[in-house]
């Protein structure tokens, strides 16, 4: 973290250590790819093992001004250390640059975060829902999505260009 602050001082908005001793860096959204590339490629850091991505909806917490926090976990095999990054984005423009060109593992995690929180990842090659179906309305892990909300069942999708075999089709 000291090295990141020293190298890219304008990228880091805030730094703190949480109660369990984990060091966090809050990054400005537009400088996220730069910081991640530095963490990955610096020969002394080598945070290459991709951990995961998720978001927190801070709607009911005390400091809820930028509503969403996107969190990143990377691991360095060389230093045996986890690094935790955080990007704060507002509700009106929930857009974060994508890390898929840097870490291929980011692809599915970004889709998952988009699926559940509706946060868009700028530059993602294939940003679509991953666990829920395409017709699903809203983002279920946002705090204002009701626990018992129900979505209507969708009709069967038409399948184009499908060969169903000889079978009995056409014979009435």
């Amino acid at each position, binding site marked *: 973290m000291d090295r990141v602050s020293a190298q890219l001082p304008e990228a880091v908005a805030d730094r703190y250590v*949480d*109660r*369990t001793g*984990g060091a966090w860096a809050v990054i400005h959204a537009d400088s996220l790819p730069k910081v991640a590339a530095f963490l990955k490629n610096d020969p002394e850091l080598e945070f*290459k*093992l*991709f*951990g*995961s991505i*998720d978001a*927190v*909806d801070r709607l*009911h*917490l005390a400091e809820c001004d930028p509503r969403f926090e996107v*969190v990143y*976990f990377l*691991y360095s*095999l060389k230093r*045996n250390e*986890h690094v*935790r990054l955080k990007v704060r984005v507002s509700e009106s423009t929930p857009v974060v640059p994508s890390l898929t060109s840097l*870490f*291929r*593992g980011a*692809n*599915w*995690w970004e889709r998952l975060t988009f699926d*559940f929180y509706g946060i868009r990842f700028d530059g993602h090659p294939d940003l679509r829902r*991953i*666990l*829920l*179906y395409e017709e699903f309305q809203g983002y*279920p*892990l946002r705090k204002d999505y009701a*626990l018992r909300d129900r979505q209507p069942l969708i009709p069967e999708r038409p399948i184009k260009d499908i060969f169903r075999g000889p079978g009995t089709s056409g014979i009435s």
Partner: protein
Amino acid sequence: MSDHGKPQTEAPNPDTDAYAHESELESHLQTKRMVINMGPSHPATHGTVRLKVELEGETIVKIDPEIGFLHRGFQKSCENVTWTQCLPYTDRLNYLSSMMNNFGFLNAVEKLIGLEIPERAQYIRVIGSELHRLQDHLTCVGATGLEMGGFAPFLFAMEFRELIHDRVAELTGARLTTSFGRVGGINRDLPEGWIPKVHKSLDRGLELIDEMDALLTRNRIFVDRTKGTGVINAEDAIDFGYTGPALRACGVNYDIRKAKPYWVYDRFDFKVPVGEHGDNYDRYLVRLEEMRQSVLILRQAMDTIPAGPIIVDDWRIALPPKPEVYGTIEGVMSHFKLVMEGIQVPAGEVYDATEASNGELGWYIVSDGGGRPYKVHVRAPGFPVLAAVPHIIEGKMLADLIPTFDTINMIGGEVEQ
């Protein structure tokens, strides 16, 4: 004009020429690409997943895994119940290693509270985790053998798994979804005479593992179908976020039990098997050896387990003993407050990871200081492993998909939350 000198243009005589019908045959061959749906529930894929496979002949051109069939809102459910009530949900992420999921979640919560659990509880957590690691690997290895056409190894694996199920049932009262952990320790102590029984089961288990080893490891069909298929090199594996046996099969020695020992793992003498090529065969070998190391850990843990309490003596965290609940007003109040309001975890956030059977099981937990989690994020080890399947398998044969899918051991429950 004579035709002499240009015999090629002559129509072939089907009575004398063996290749007379060749052009006719080829004109009927389908050269179109074919899309095949494997799944959602397919006999050759572990778990419920749909694979949209685009084939050119036998070669896979494109593959798109579609998940989410088992999605049941794990995070949303956890955010609306107390910390202790999350435990059954964590069990169901991977029912073959339910104790590891349980204890991993509790480890993160205890770290957030700043709690040190009693030594005996740490030993019992190690024992439970290693039993479930055995169970998970047995299912994976046995099913791999089964899907390569060997039924006997599967039966040996099931016999050992059944022995473990019986021991787990004696310990916890349940065979699969145990819900055995509690914040600050575990639910109940080891039953009378349980340790010698486990030793006996492990003796039989080692014989069964040896039998599986003898049947599969040098079997011609098994080796031909797994060696050199489903290869991923170490650099790509790290980039995708592989952990556990799948990463160690590529030659990267990363095991959280050694890298950042938790509980009492640093007191035991065991090795971490590491592969070389990152193919299906290496993943199988790593799992096989890991089972033997698990047996070693289990034996050491059971031989050196100390006496003492199994849960912290703090009525704000653990339920008071029953005589206190029935006999004293303080006991009743603590019991009531714990059940109704849950454990009051101080506000904060934590990321904590343990080594589950398939790799790093990470928990990112945010608490707002109340009795319910504000946010529970699980970094399931199967998720990145499944995400890399298109990278591994594109351009390979359809038949390679099956051993690859077996040995990466994708677990539907944790991938789809």
